[in-house]
């Protein structure tokens, strides 16, 4: 007898929708919590508490809206969009968010998590200095592993803008990380 393989996301989603299956939903949460929280930590400039609150909100919204999931996009892309919108709505309560373009963000004072080696901390600090759009693009394409097209759709900006954001963000990160190591 072969080992029983892990059910695909689609099977778990169908179980949740058809039978209100909480165990299936818990498996989806276990499977996706790590990248969702990592994305939100990046978007929230390293504020882990806020990121986890938003991640919880993301999964609760996903639970509520799963019946409307149409399987025409990857579940990851759909979930990223919910997480991104949760962050956007929370951030807009406090300030204007510029996704198309905008000035660099100020480094967040509270962004200093104890996450291992110095290089990662430097990266986290450098990411916090990017503009909202650049951080959203990096979070989508690296932390959620979305294609440029998926990221554009999820964030709601043209694909060309996503590519520009990624290029600019990387240039800024290289410069920042270069400064840190000098």
């Amino acid at each position, binding site marked *: 007898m072969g080992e029983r393989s892990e059910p695909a996301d689609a099977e778990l989603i169908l179980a949740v929708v058809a039978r*209100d299956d*909480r165990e299936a*939903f*818990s498996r989806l*949460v*276990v499977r996706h*919590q*790590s*990248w969702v*929280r*990592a994305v939100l*930590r990046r978007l929230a400039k390293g504020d882990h508490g806020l990121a*986890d609150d938003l*991640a*919880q909100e993301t*999964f*609760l919204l996903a*639970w*509520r809206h799963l019946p409307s999931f149409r399987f025409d996009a990857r579940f990851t892309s759909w979930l990223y969009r919910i997480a991104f919108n949760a962050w956007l709505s929370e951030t807009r309560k406090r300030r204007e968010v510029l996704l198309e373009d905008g000035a660099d963000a100020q480094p967040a004072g509270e962004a200093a998590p104890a996450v291992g080696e110095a*290089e*990662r901390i430097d*990266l*986290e600090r450098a990411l916090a200095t990017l503009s909202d759009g650049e951080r959203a693009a*990096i979070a989508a394409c*690296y*932390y959620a*592993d979305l294609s440029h097209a998926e990221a554009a759709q999820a964030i709601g900006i043209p694909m060309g803008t996503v590519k520009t954001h990624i290029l600019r963000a*990387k*240039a800024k*990160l*290289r410069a920042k*990380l*270069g400064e840190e190591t000098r």
Partner: protein
Amino acid sequence: MTDDSRDRLEALLREDAARAVADEGFCRRVAAALPPPRAPRAWLRPALVVGSAALGGVLAVLAAPAGIPLAQGFADLARLPALTPAALAALGLALAMAVTAGVLVAEES
């Protein structure tokens, strides 16, 4: 800008993205925050049983030859206090259906 610095940043981003975020009770908190399970539709089975019985009764009356006492009984019931034997039979049938419904509802709850 060197290829090395490009590769290093790319690797650093990929490495950071691949690093698992420890659960630390997160999944449990999400599960606890889910809305309560949908209440089973307790009314559905009794409604189906009683509805089927009522439909069966109506069909039986309609399909029966004219002058059947039960049909006359319902007509008599409508003109209370005409408690004819047929009306009593109709009343009995109605009461039996009501009791059945009551029992089913009690059983469900």
